[in-house]
């Protein structure tokens, strides 16, 4: 039985102190824990702490210390992220992680750079597990930032390569959230398709406010009117599940190429309507044969009913951080960063390589399609829907690489 230590102060009477039996390495998890995207943020935090417990702490920890992720609610906003970064550094935390929203990630990189320049004795290191704006490891790249997810351009490269072979695609509609990530997806889709399949017509390119739209029916009507046979979207969280739900309600027949349809409620929203129509690009899904991760995922899903394991890259990240700290024999951010650079970490799908020139992780990727679970190739269904993901293409670590324009300032 795990105990929840709920600290509270009561007016003058009860003074409560949290017990710390073991010294801890703390990583501040700065992501939305309230608001429209809270389901994404709180699911991620559970995954991180589970990974830290199972993959690190139960195997000896970090030089005998425990690894722990502490939640800081940034409400999804870049400004609040910096306030939370301040709160984390005020508590003496030296490592941060964030993933939901490239706007917030960009602001954090800026802030970490400034902080480290002004406080060389209290440097902070930023592990990015999901913010995919390519700029973060190109124009904005920093020595103090590591990205463990493939960036948006790498993902779009793989998706458009796959689309090139599907001659049935004639008209593509791009819809995205109105912020850095949505803009990047739209830009990359247009540029890459123009090169690889000049015959494909882009019949629509729409941006909607992020986290504000409750009813996507008007957008779906527009997609329908455009005659598109394929929709490309970088949407995530409720913005994706509501979009798919509205498409289902209106009977839209188009195929959806997505980044994030695999988790966090979207499979539930799609249900049967997504069968054979929705594709995703990920570094892993339940039906990629990986014995240990499969078990980890099943245990996790059982432990947290209603939350489903999604971020395989977080497991990689947690193990890589622990490995870097243990090899460097230090929990100093600079030493950890140096140990992470150029690390080759063998995982269950192959190898994750942290490229030194831009701190972008390279890893195998999979394109998969939503299909009825059959117990064989589609062994596991997704979120209890009876439908799961079937790999239709896999991309090796080497093939996923793209060049970088990063000119890194090194301390």
């Amino acid at each position, binding site marked *: 039985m795990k105990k929840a230590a709920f600290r509270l102060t009561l007016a003058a009477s009860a003074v409560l102190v949290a017990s710390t039996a073991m010294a801890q390495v703390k990583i501040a998890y700065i992501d939305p824990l309230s608001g429209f995207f809270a389901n994404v943020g709180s699911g991620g935090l559970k995954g991180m702490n589970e990974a830290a417990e199972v993959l690190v702490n139960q195997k000896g920890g970090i030089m005998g210390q425990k690894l722990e992720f502490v939640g800081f609610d940034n409400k999804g906003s870049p400004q609040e992220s910096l306030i939370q970064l301040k709160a984390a550094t005020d508590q003496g935390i030296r490592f941060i992680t964030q993933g939901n929203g490239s706007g917030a990630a960009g602001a954090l990189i800026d802030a970490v750079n400034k902080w480290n320049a002004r406080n060389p004795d209290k440097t902070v290191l930023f592990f990015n597990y999901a913010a995919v704006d390519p700029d973060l490891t190109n124009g904005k790249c920093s020595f103090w930032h590591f990205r463990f997810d493939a960036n948006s351009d790498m993902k779009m490269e793989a998706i458009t390569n796959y689309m090139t072979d599907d001659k049935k695609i004639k008209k593509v509609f791009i819809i995205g959230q109105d912020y850095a990530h949505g803009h990047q997806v739209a830009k990359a889709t247009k540029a890459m398709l123009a090169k690889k399949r000049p015959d494909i017509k882009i019949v629509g390119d729409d941006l909607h406010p992020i986290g504000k739209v409750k009813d996507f029916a*008007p957008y779906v*009507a527009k997609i*329908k009117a455009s005659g598109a046979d394929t929709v490309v979207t970088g949407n995530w969280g409720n913005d994706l599940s509501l979009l798919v739900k509205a498409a289902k*309600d209106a009977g839209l027949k188009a195929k959806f190429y997505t980044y994030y349809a695999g988790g966090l409620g979207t499979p539930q929203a799609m249900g049967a309507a997504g069968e054979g129509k929705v594709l995703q690009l990920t570094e892993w899904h339940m039906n990629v044969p990986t014995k240990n991760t499969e078990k980890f995922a099943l245990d996790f899903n059982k432990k947290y009913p209603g939350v489903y394991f999604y971020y395989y890259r977080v497991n990689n990240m947690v193990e890589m951080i622990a490995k870097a700290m243990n090899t460097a024999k230090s929990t100093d951010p600079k030493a950890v960063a140096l140990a992470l650079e150029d690390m080759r970490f063998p995982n269950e799908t192959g190898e994750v390589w942290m490229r030194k020139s831009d701190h972008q992780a390279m890893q195998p990727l999979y394109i998969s399609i939503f299909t009825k679970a059959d117990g064989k190739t589609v062994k596991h269904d997704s979120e209890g829907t009876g439908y799961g993901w079937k790999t239709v293409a896999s991309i090796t670590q080497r093939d996923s690489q793209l060049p970088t324009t990063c000119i890194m300032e090194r301390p």
Partner: protein
Amino acid sequence: MSNLEFILVTLLNGVTYGLLLFMLSSGLTLIFSMMGVLNFAHASFYMLGAYFAYQISTWVGFWPGLLVAPLLVGAIGALVERYGLRAAHRYGHVAELLFTFGLAFFMEEIVHLIWGRNSVDYRIPDELDGTLFTLFSTDFPIYKGFMMGISVAMLVALYVMLTRTRVGLIIQAALTKPDMVEALGHNVPRIFMLVFGGGSALAGLAGVIGGNAFVTEPGMAAAVGSIVFVVVVVGGLGSLGGAFVASILLGCIQTFSIAMTVSLSDIFALVGISLDKTPSISRLTITQLAPILPYLLMVAILIFRPRGLMGARES
């Protein structure tokens, strides 16, 4: 897909949304017109309705919740009026306004406390999940039809209640001349309580059927709250008809503006002005302008026609 189909589908979407808005704003208009209180917590009752219905649906299913949840919300509304708002009334309108403002804040926190900060999995019942009819090639879901049906039924019931019953006539009189009604010996405070409870129940009902069509999450009150104000102001004080017209109008504005890809430079090009020098502004499409249109309308109404579209008097 033909243009006609597109226009019809968008119109249907707009009207469905507009009817939901009316269910929310009818109560607010009644409260605002009679009591002079701009009830900031009104949208919170909408949220409460959705959460109650969710909770009931996990125990005994959707259908009992459709009846019980609005009644519960209405009862809470009546209690709030009796023990909260009436106390604040002693200190004047500003205190009343602040009370409802604080109440909205407080109710959101209560929802955080009980149901957490995430969205809850409040679903459309299986019986209503499917296609009602197909318009050319677009499916119209049963649930949207159901929403429209409930809204129209509520509209008719409200109309009958206001025009055919004694209480309704008193309420109507109190809408325009509250002092006179009091002078005639009616128990105005009790009518206030009734109207406040009834209005809250309507908002709760909107939450029951809107919560699963969209998302049931703690931010839902804030998201819809300001739009409902726009409806009340645009429609005009003391006019349910005005609120109805404004609701449908806003519903359609929101859906049609999303459908338009025309940009400002296109519009100016029509009259022969080319706007190439200010690219970021002129490239804005109507779709992107959609979120500000309701507020633009509201400010314009307040400046040029403070009575609202069909208002009986100025605030």
